[in-house]
């Protein structure tokens, strides 16, 4: 019984429920938003420390033995992702206090935020493939509602694309789960990993692998399946887009990492090439799309796509070092990308627009905001000694070691293009003078343009931005201990025997030989015994 595995799921669910109980009380909901997310951060730290010392932490739901019940498992990858969820959750909790309008709060902004975090945490921790689908849906439904909060025209149009394509991905995922169950007769991911090697029809396994790749590819916004992302991520309230940008697509990437290291590791073959070039095209199209944009959040949305390419590249190179680099990229990107969206929210508050052409002069007006943007933007582009540099460095090094020179070259060129986009934002928003026709800021802010009224809420917007920028610097400075953790992740994912053993409680080899001898007849049920011939 290890409660720390279940806590990151239970706490946000509880906060969501408490928040719903206080439906009419705005101060109470705001209090729960911060207190609940502080609790989540503490729980995720606990899980991280426990995983660091134990390697794997498992918990069988309802005390059903492993392949029959639902397993919660935290390996190093899950623990790091949960830790990032906790950090971003708290940052968003505080930031939302200042940016969320009363109208949005009245329609359940905070309960939805908690449910979204619960869905994300559940997806990171589950060891059961159908349960993964369920957590994806929990997360999706919460994100649907958050996306259309406010009900403006752009939101509706963005939401239709977002909802349709994500539901399509869910159905592909669900169909794949059904076919997988028909093929191997189990839903436990560790058990699937053992049994899938013994499936007679190799073609069936390949079909399944492709279905999972497409389903998670849509969710992760990989080329050519990313079009829903730039069409919708710039439409909702800024705190929501920051939360989406930081966490949601990364859940898709996490699922790709999990499924393609644990279950389909034997079938990579030419799929690996498809994934590799998919990753490269994702990087290139994302960064080119951003180059053509002049809207703050839209540029950032395209850069999400571009950065997803780096993460998938780490998986596609498929060496322990490359996987470590991919996870490093995920971690760094969650911090930096969220922060850039948060900064776009502050500049919107200050100047009333997201259009770069209409903005300007912020370097003179708010030098510290400029510094925070500078750190995050250059970290995204991969300038040393910030966090992005090390993520890119590890991936590039793994690429050179794997002798994938063309791919590595493109990855470096994309870094340069990212720098171009970031410098464009820097020039337009911070460096150039404010255009004449816009010297009176548009009065869209709820609490006035300047002076005392705005100060307390601006403080709450600055706090997460400064802390996250600091994280980006610290990740860069303490890259070595972090790299040790990443190497553990790389080794754990590359050799999933430890994961399988932790879930099933038996050494993987022994279990496999049992299965091969066909003596494995469960006594507690028929679920796993009825494989279709």
């Amino acid at each position, binding site marked *: 019984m290890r409660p720390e595995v279940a806590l990151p799921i239970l706490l946000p669910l509880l906060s969501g429920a408490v928040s719903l109980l206080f439906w009419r009380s705005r101060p109470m909901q705001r209090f729960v938003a911060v207190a609940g997310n502080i609790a989540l951060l503490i729980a995720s730290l606990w899980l991280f420390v426990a995983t660091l010392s134990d390697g794997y932490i498992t918990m069988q739901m309802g005390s059903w033995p492993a392949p029959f019940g639902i397993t919660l498992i935290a390996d190093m990858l899950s623990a790091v992702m949960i830790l990032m969820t906790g950090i971003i959750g708290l940052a968003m909790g505080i930031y939302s206090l200042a940016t969320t309008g009363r109208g949005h709060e009245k329609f359940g902004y905070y309960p939805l935020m908690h449910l979204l975090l619960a869905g994300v945490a559940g997806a990171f921790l589950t060891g059961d493939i159908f349960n993964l689908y*369920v957590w994806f849906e929990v997360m999706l*439904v919460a994100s649907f509602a958050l996306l259309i909060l406010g009900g403006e025209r752009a939101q509706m*149009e963005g939401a239709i694309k977002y*909802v349709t394509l994500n539901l399509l991905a869910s159905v592909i995922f*669900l169909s794949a789960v059904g076919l997988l169950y028909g093929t191997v007769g189990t839903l436990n991911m560790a058990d699937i990993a053992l049994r899938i090697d013994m499936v007679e029809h190799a073609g069936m396994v390949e079909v399944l692998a492709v279905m999972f790749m497409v389903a998670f590819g849509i969710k992760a916004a990989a080329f050519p399946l990313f079009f829903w992302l730039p069409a919708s991520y710039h439409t909702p309230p800024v705190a929501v887009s920051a939360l989406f940008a930081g966490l949601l697509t990364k859940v898709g990437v996490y699922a790709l990492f999990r499924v393609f290291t644990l279950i389909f590791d034997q079938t990579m073959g030419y799929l690996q090439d498809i994934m590799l070039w998919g990753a490269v095209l994702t990087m290139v199209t994302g960064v080119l799309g951003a180059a053509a944009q002049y809207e703050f959040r839209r540029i950032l949305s395209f850069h999400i796509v571009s950065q997803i390419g780096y993460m998938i590249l780490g998986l596609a190179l498929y060496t322990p070092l490359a996987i470590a680099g991919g996870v490093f990229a995920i971690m760094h990107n969650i911090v930096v990308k969220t922060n850039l969206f948060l900064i776009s929210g502050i500049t919107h508050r200050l100047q009333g627009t997201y259009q770069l052409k209409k903005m300007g002069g912020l370097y003179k007006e708010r030098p510290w905001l400029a510094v925070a943007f500078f750190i995050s933007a250059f970290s995204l582009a991969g300038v040393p000694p910030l966090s992005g540099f090390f993520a890119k460095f590890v991936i590039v090094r793994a690429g050179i070691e794997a002798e994938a020179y063309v791919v590595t070259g493109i990855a470096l060129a994309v870094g340069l293009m990212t720098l171009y986009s970031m410098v464009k934002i820097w020039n337009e928003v911070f460096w150039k003078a404010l255009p004449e026709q816009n010297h009176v800021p548009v009065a869209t802010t709820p609490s006035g343009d300047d002076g005392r009224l705005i100060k307390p809420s601006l403080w709450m917007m600055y706090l997460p931005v400064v802390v996250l920028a600091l994280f980006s610097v610290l990740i860069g400075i303490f890259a070595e201990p972090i790299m040790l953790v990443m190497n553990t992740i790389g080794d754990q994912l590359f050799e999933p025997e430890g994961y399988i053993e932790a879930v099933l409680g038996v050494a993987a080899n022994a279990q496999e030989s049992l299965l091969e001898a066909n003596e494995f007849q469960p006594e507690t*049920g028929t*679920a796993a015994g009825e494989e279709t011939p």
Partner: protein
Amino acid sequence: MEPLMALAIGLLYATAIFMMLRRSIVKLVIGLLLLSNAANLLIFTTAGMTRGAPPLIPEGMLQPVGEVADPLPQAVVLTAIVIAFGVLAFAVVLIRRAYEVVKADDLDKMKDTDT
């Protein structure tokens, strides 16, 4: 039974994709509905269909006698139906709001956020 089910499932998937490719947002939602039904039937069929043998353990025994139906895909399908129901309810409300805001039942008129 299986060939018939396979045919029905294939037809459902095809109809769903066809409906989703139309321009009307109402047809889009009908497509989503059919798609989730197709997936549910697929799970039900691939897990193996056993006729008239409920997974019940006779009194005084520890495991069922003879061949019984696998209860797990049924539990899975039930969960998937509930999820699909909730999501579709949301989708229906969404297209109603979208229709009110955009004043058109036409996806081609919803291109403002595209790039």
